[in-house]
């Protein structure tokens, strides 16, 4: 299964070395009162230096849980990693004891969260919080750390950084707070940055600014960026490749440009079709019928079959593997070729 699912970048494959970050057949489940929810059900993707991978999916698709498992900050209980591997430069992080694992966090792999207001500690000044990275990880003095913090804040384009270094999170606007979180995350120059819905809580204009900032920082520092989002629009400008997730599995993998014009999975197709378009004004909005399944009762066979217009009997019986439909395009669908053809 592994060889067909992982998607190493061409450069890495050519260079013959392990990708920067590799998630291999990851399985995560949540054990709750209402049953066991399989939140991540065999997810694999990889990331290289300078690459941006977009992980796309709705709430409940497992995209955030995968990221938390990569970081090793999944709340356990009720979440448990029950299979698979997470490799950073070849080293399997899941097999490491916690204190060794912690050494990677913040330093090599960093994460930015969605709601910066609740993600920042309200009772400490932002400078102090960013400075913590330097003081704790590198033993810097308060004075030195402060200097670096101001530099960072200026780098993420927070105006009047020197004056605002001692302000509290609630004194900043949403966009500024997000920049502060980003500053905190890139403080130690991590190799991988995971951004979990970094712009969802922001206005559209601010969204664009933040995405631009992320893109600049990535290019400047050659970071690998994993962008988790449900917004197709955000993905188009920034990502190199995209993985579409549904009900804990990856349904489609592709390079960004091609997937918009010619999706090879009914789910992706449904998502694209549901975006309101100016030239179709006056017509009914099309939406994927039905609702995402409860993860304690995932449908048999293909997870998407209850909602899929292409579904046949085989979809209910046999779970489609993620296979290469066309060179570079992977889809977990028995009728991937048909979907592809339908888009021409």
């Amino acid at each position, binding site marked *: 299964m592994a060889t067909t699912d992982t998607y190493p970048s061409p450069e890495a494959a050519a260079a013959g070395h392990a990708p920067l970050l590799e998630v291999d057949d990851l399985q995560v489940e949540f054990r709750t009162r209402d049953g066991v929810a399989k939140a991540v059900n065999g997810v694999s993707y990889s990331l290289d230096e300078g690459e941006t991978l977009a992980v796309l999916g709705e709430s409940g698709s*497992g995209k955030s849980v995968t990221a938390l498992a990569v970081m090793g900050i999944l709340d356990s209980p009720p*979440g448990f990693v029950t299979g698979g591997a997470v490799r950073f430069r070849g080293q399997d992080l899941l097999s490491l004891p916690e204190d060794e694992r912690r050494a990677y966090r913040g330093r090599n792999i960093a994460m930015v969260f969605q709601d910066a207001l609740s993600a920042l500690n309200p009772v400490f000044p932002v400078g102090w919080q960013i400075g913590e990275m330097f003081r704790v990880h590198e033993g810097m003095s308060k004075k030195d750390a402060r200097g670096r913090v101001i530099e960072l804040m200026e780098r993420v384009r927070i105006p009047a950084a020197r004056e605002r270094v001692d302000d509290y999170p609630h004194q900043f606007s949403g966009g500024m707070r997000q920049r502060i979180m980003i500053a905190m995350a890139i403080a130690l120059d991590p190799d991988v940055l995971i951004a979990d819905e970094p712009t969802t809580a922001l206005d559209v204009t601010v969204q664009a600014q933040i995405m631009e900032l992320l893109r600049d920082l990535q290019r400047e520092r050659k970071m690998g960026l994993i962008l988790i989002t449900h917004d197709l629009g955000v993905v188009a400008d920034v990502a190199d490749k995209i993985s579409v997730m549904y009900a804990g599995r990856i349904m489609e993998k592709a390079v960004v440009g091609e997937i918009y014009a010619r999706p090879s999975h009914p789910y992706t197709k449904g998502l694209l079709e549901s975006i309101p378009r100016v030239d179709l004004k006056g017509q009914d909005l099309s939406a994927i019928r039905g609702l995402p399944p409860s993860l304690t*009762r995932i*449908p*048999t066979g293909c997870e998407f079959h209850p909602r899929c217009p292409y579904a046949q009997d085989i979809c209910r019986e046999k779970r489609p593997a993620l296979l290469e439909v066309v060179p570079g395009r992977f889809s977990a669908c028995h009728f991937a070729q048909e979907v592809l053809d339908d888009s021409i």
Partner: protein
Amino acid sequence: MTDPNALYPPAAALADEKVHPEAETALEAGTEAPPGAPQERDKPRSLTSDAWHDLRRNPIFIVSAVIIVVLVVMAAFPGVFTNKDPRFCDLNLSRQSPSADAWFGYDVQGCDVYARTIYGARASILVGLFTTLAVTIIGGLIGMIAGFYSGWVDSVLSRVLEIFFGIPLLLGGVLVLASFPSGPNTPQLVTVGKVVLALAVLAWTSLARIMRSTVIQVKHADYVSAARALGGGAARILRSHVLPNAVAPVIVYATIVFGIFIGVEATLSFLGIGLQPPVISWGVAINDASTYIRQSPHMLLFPGAFLTVTVLAFIMLGDAVRDAFDPRLR
């Protein structure tokens, strides 16, 4: 003994748990069952029926509810539990220890402690009941008005609230009751009434706050704006939207505070300023028994135990009801 004014806002003190956010999303992601899966949730359940469903299985709820029922029966029909006359006292029997004749022994005056303890339930339950009712009605009304008609009405009422908040319950009770003393010649109803009034006047603030914040929350909800747009008047909105939302926190608070009032009344009676003879009350009994605590602890321990169990039962009941109503535990 804690001040009920300190009970709110730390209302979360007696509750726990919260469904884990990731698990929540994982579970929330849709309730449509795939074809072929057994039909589990057929009709939507309301919060109250869900709560009742959970409560029925909670052993703490059952135990405390049973205790309270027994106490209420004891208060209403003390004759069911004893055929002795609590007022019949024989000084020759003074301070005798428990025996087959008198299960709890005799007190200083030679009265049967068991009988007095049983009859004492009435005073405690009555004070608790009336005070809780008064506090709920007064506090509820004022809170509702303050929350609904914001602006200067709210400002004034909130200042009033702050002022009453500044007087701790026990201290205030002492103050009021010291100024309106009762004696052995005061009719029992008057004595009880004074205690109820004194406590109610001082303790309505917390409930007013609860009601006020519920009203404010509901007022800003979209469905209320919709109701108003459809021409709903104040009374209707209060009745159909505000009250149902307020029911849960008010019931929880009322149950817990019922127990606290019983405790405070007993404390005031113990101090000699609350209920007094000829009213039979646990607080008074403990007061009388205190001088002989070394020699005859039974005179104090039995009414003390009953008092403790009563207060505990109410508080645990309130605890259980709160957990049942807490939507975060779903």
